[in-house]
C-alpha cells in the first residue's frame, strides 16, 4: 500500500474538517441541481395537468422497452458506484478501479440505449420543430410533451456524460494510488454526483414513459 501524505489543504485544521467541507460543497451543488431540474419538472407538471389527454397519448409513443432497461442500467451503476466508494474508504486500490470501470460502462450503455431511442423518435417523427408529425388531436400539446421529453432527457444525458468523465478521472487517480483510505474524498464526492444523476432518472422514467399505458 502506498502512503502519500494525507493531504490536508492549508485552510483546514484537520482532515475530518476538510472531509466535511468537501461533502457539504457537493451537497450544496446538488441542491442547485435540484432547483435546475425542479423548475423543468414544474413546467412539465403544469403542462401535464393542463393537457392530460394529449400528454397520455404522447407518452404512449415512448417505449418502456427503452426506458425500463435504461433505468435498470443506472440502478446497476449506482450499486457498483457505492461499492467503488466503499473500496476507496477501505483504501483498496484495485477494487476501487474494478468497480469504477463497470460503473463507467453502465453509464456508456445508458447513453448508447438513449441514442438508439432518439433515433427511433426521429424515425417516428417525434422531434419537435425539426421533424414532428402528429395524427391525433391536440398536436400542439403533444409536441409540447416532446419538447419537455427532449429537454429533460437531453440535460440528463449531458449529466451522465459529465459523470462518465468525472469517474474516468477518479479511476485514473485511483489507479495511480492518489486515492487512499485517508484521503478518498475525490471518490466520495464523485459518487454523490453519480447517485444524484440516477435519482433524476428515477423521477423522469415514470413521469415521461409511464403515463399513457392504462
Amino acid at each position, binding site marked *: 500500500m502506498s502512503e502519500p501524505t494525507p493531504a490536508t489543504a492549508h485552510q483546514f485544521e484537520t482532515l475530518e474538517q476538510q472531509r466535511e467541507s468537501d461533502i457539504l460543497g457537493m451537497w450544496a451543488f446538488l441542491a442547485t441541481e435540484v432547483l435546475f431540474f425542479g423548475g423543468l419538472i414544474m413546467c412539465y407538471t403544469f403542462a401535464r395537468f393542463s393537457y392530460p389527454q394529449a400528454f397520455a397519448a404522447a407518452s404512449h409513443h415512448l417505449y418502456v422497452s427503452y426506458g*425500463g432497461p435504461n433505468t435498470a442500467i443506472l440502478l446497476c451503476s449506482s450499486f457498483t458506484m*457505492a461499492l467503488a466508494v466503499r473500496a476507496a474508504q477501505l483504501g483498496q486500490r484495485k477494487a476501487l478501479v474494478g468497480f469504477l470501470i463497470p460503473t463507467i460502462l453502465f453509464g456508456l450503455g445508458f447513453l448508447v440505449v438513449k441514442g438508439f431511442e432518439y433515433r427511433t423518435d426521429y424515425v417516428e417523427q417525434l422531434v419537435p420543430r425539426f421533424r414532428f408529425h402528429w395524427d391525433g388531436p391536440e398536436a400542439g400539446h403533444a409536441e409540447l410533451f416532446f419538447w419537455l421529453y427532449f429537454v429533460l432527457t437531453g440535460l440528463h444525458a449531458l449529466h451522465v456524460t459529465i459523470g462518465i468523465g468525472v469517474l474516468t478521472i477518479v479511476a485514473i487517480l485511483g489507479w495511480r494510488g492518489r486515492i487512499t483510505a485517508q484521503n478518498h474524498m475525490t471518490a466520495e464526492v464523485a*459518487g454523490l454526483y453519480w447517485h444524484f444523476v440516477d435519482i433524476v432518472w428515477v423521477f423522469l422514467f415514470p413521469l415521461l414513459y409511464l403515463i399513457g399505458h392504462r
Partner: protein
Amino acid sequence: MSTHVVPTKTYAAIFVALMVLLGLTVGVAYIDLGPLNFAAAMTIAVLKAFLIIAVFMDVRSAQKRGSSGSRSC
C-alpha cells in the same frame, strides 16, 4: 478519522429493493387506478430516491456521525 464503512450486504439489499421497486412501478402503470396511478408512481419514485440518498449517498451514517459529535470547530 472515523470513516464508517457500510457492509457490502447492505448495498446489495438496497440494490435488490431498487430493482423490485422498478418492476413494481412498471407493473402499476399498466393497471388502471385512475388518479392513483400518478400517486403510486410518485410514491415509488420517492421511495427509490430515499433508499439511494439514505444508503448509497450515506446520509444515514453521516447523521449518526453528526449526532455522535465528532466536530472540532
